[in-house]
């Protein structure tokens, strides 16, 4: 099982917001016998999808120079379960930024139905506090972002493609 809980970025404006998709499929391990007879995506993995999208939004705002980790889920509401065959439209907006962390607000829709609303708080880990150096091997984060179409859509607030990141 890979730990990717978003499939694609459709929009990304540095320092502002991100939009994308997560497809829910029967072939996913996470659905296998999770609710036997009525397969659904574990709701905590929807939180993770938002955390990945939000984490990237926050991290890119700092040129991927900070260790961004999920510290709190402020609130999460699930209006309906995510079923096999659903495509979740994810929307994450950067809310506030401080020197040691940031908050984002997130929504997921299935078609035009509001599926979930989630608020997240990230903290920036000081280097050396839990681990030395980067969390990812060189190029790995870049490969992941490329797969998700990040570079196809990511722009700065002026609408220009984001800079070439050599540190990820």
């Amino acid at each position, binding site marked *: 099982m890979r730990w990717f809980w978003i499939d694609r970025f459709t929009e990304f404006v540095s320092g502002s917001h991100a939009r994308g998709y997560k497809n829910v499929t029967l072939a996913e391990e996470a659905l296998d016998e999770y609710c036997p007879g009525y397969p659904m995506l574990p709701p905590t993995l929807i939180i993770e999808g938002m955390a990945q999208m939000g984490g990237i939004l926050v991290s890119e705002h700092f040129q991927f120079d900070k260790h961004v980790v999920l510290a709190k889920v402020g609130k999460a509401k699930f209006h309906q379960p995510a079923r096999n065959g659903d495509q979740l439209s994810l929307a994450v907006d950067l809310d*506030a930024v*401080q*020197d040691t962390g940031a908050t984002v607000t997130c929504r997921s829709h299935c078609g035009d139905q509001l599926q979930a609303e989630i608020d997240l708080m990230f903290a920036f880990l000081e280097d050396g506090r839990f681990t030395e150096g980067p969390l990812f091997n060189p190029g790995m984060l870049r490969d992941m972002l490329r797969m998700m179409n990040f570079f196809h859509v990511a722009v700065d607030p002026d609408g220009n493609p984001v800079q070439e990141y050599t540190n990820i």
Partner: protein
Amino acid sequence: MGLSQDEIFEKVQEALVDALGVDDDEVNRGATLVGDLGAESIDFLDIVFKLEKSFDINIERTELAPEDILTNGEYVKDGVVTADGMAELKRRMPWADMSQFEQNPRVQDFGNLLTVGDLCSYVGSKVGSDA
């Protein structure tokens, strides 16, 4: 056009209930954030975000958590805040009641200084209270 003391208290109470997962009735003015309400350092960041949003103000986290003073060798000796250090703390946090802390100003005790009432005073100083 400021907010009344009660309005400030209610919003601060809401922020603390959300951030700390405590009940309304635990959040009274005399309750200490760390000792009584169980706030940890990650919670202070959360409280800052919530107060900023609730009151539409800008907060420097170090106004509530002056680690830079408490870890400065000029202001702290053998785990005790010096006279200069106390002056700095009071300058940074004029709205906080430091009288009890001042009697035995050990750095390790500082975390438990802040009460809900102090937080209300802090917010009041930023928004302009009517009271």
